[in-house]
């Protein structure tokens, strides 16, 4: 059995007396689309913050591709191959669509800051550095993948909501991750956009990226997930295939309710 992409052991995070995440244990298999669902406040975004290093865990271990992840700084974890989008969209307010994606590329093109500085200073007076051209082409490719290429010079925050979410994904993908954490990518989208997103996420996975998906849209979740973990009040209450989850009484009781078509 090939080693999992992401292995979580006893992961816990407290805020004061309140356990946002309590002793979580889960595995994400390579090449899977793994969904993380649960009512609001169940700890899903906290989980993302812990994996990406934005918050420090109180207890527990995160293993990525067989190696323990302990970097204090999120940028290091991104260099390892873990990327994410944000629940409440954090685009750079004054950058264009193209520049936004190129930010994602920076860490791969210039892992050394001093090289970046040298490249900045020594470029030819009236042209771009070769690297810049390459980054631009990569960025345009990614934007084309998401159908945003024609808007590349628009200000990122001027885009319609659905496009902003796609842009966040493009930016995250620019860092060439092997694990992509998507935080509610379908929030606020209409059914047509959600269907498009469905295809996009699957195609991203087919390019070799393992995906962990936090979502409330059950149709999307059941449709594309290979495996689902259910959280409630920071604790895992179920873990299995979509069919298993749909039949699980604890899950139904805690979360799914009767109105969601299964």
């Amino acid at each position: 059995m090939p080693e999992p992409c992401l292995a979580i052991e006893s992961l816990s995070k407290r805020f004061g007396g309140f356990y946002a995440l309590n002793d979580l244990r889960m595995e994400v298999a390579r090449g899977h689309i793994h969904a993380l669902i649960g009512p609001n406040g169940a700890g899903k975004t906290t989980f993302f913050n812990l994996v990406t290093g934005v918050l420090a865990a109180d207890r527990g271990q995160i293993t990525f591709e067989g190696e323990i992840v302990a970097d204090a700084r999120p940028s290091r974890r991104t260099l390892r191959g873990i990327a994410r989008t944000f629940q409440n969209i954090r685009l750079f307010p004054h950058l264009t669509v193209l520049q936004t994606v190129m930010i994602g590329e920076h860490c791969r093109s210039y892992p050394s800051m001093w090289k970046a500085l040298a490249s900045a200073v020594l470029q030819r007076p009236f042209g771009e550095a070769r690297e810049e051209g390459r980054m631009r082409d990569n960025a345009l490719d990614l934007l084309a993948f998401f159908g945003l290429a024609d808007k590349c010079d628009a200000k990122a925050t001027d885009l319609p909501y659905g496009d902003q979410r796609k842009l966040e994904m493009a930016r995250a993908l620019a860092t060439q991750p092997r694990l992509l954490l998507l935080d509610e990518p379908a929030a606020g989208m209409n059914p047509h956009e959600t269907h498009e997103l469905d295809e996009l996420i699957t195609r991203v996975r087919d390019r070799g990226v393992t995906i962990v998906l936090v979502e409330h849209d059950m149709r999307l979740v059941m449709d594309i997930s290979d495996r689902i973990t259910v959280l409630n009040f920071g604790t895992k209450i179920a873990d299995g295939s979509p069919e298993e989850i749909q039949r699980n009484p604890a899950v139904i009781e805690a979360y799914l309710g009767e109105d969601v078509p299964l």
Partner: protein
Amino acid sequence: MFDGLIDGYTQSILIFTGISVIAAYSFFAPFKTGQVSLGQAGFMAVGGYASAVLTQKFGLPFAAALPVAGLIAGVVGVVVGFPALRIKGIYLLLLTLGFGEIISVIALSWDYVGGAQGYRNIPFNPRTLDYVIGIVIVLVIFFGRLERSSLGRAMDSIHQDETAAEVMGIDVVRIKLLAFGLGAMIAGIAGALYAHQATYVDSTTFNIMLAVEILTFVVVGGGSTYWGPLVGAAVLSYLPEFLRALREWLELLPVAATNFFPMNRVYDFLHGFLDFENAKRLIVYGIILILMMIVRPDGLLTRDTIPRLPFARWKARHA
């Protein structure tokens, strides 16, 4: 180099304006990553005093002392930059302000650099204008290239959303330190240039009002583009002098044109108001600052104004 072409008075105006421009760029560097520093006057002091000591007590020629003084200021900048990493907003303002004041107090109480009497007899540098012009040109080219580069974009992203930038793999810590140290170094160079032009510095030379003025240069000029510091510093540091010159031109008007009412009243008022006296000119300066922030809070130049300028249009068409 310019001694035959430009008279001494104009030269000193240009030097003063040029040093202001350099100081403005020293603020611009950390500002690009979102760090607002009121400590640049303090770094100028470090550079100025260091250069004075190196030339006067160690006999270094100015050409060698200048980069060394800049480096010393840069190192101090990196040291201050560490605690500044996790501090933002008003706290960073106060930290950098406090740093500047500490430097002042050290200058006041350390007799090696003159103590309360200040540092006298700093060797005069007759080629200051050459240095100033050269350094300004280098800075404009440097920051222009930086703005168009990936590193410059990374700095902007840190300014706009530091956490998002960090999560996208940008090495926020290193880049912020680089920016801060770079700013300090540039300030040190400005301070050294000043010291060898004025030949005297003391603990009150590089004070809070200077630190605040430097901030003003960049914000008024436009903090989002690399031409902003140049324009802001040039306009604001030249402004008091401009007002004085305006008064002289006023006096050139033919008497007949201004002898009758109401022109004579207008003339008298303007002439009296643009009096050589510093205080009145500064009052106008302060009013202009307030008006600028009401009317154009993003500064004179923004990223949108640059493309509309004729030169940029030509360049875009011929690229």
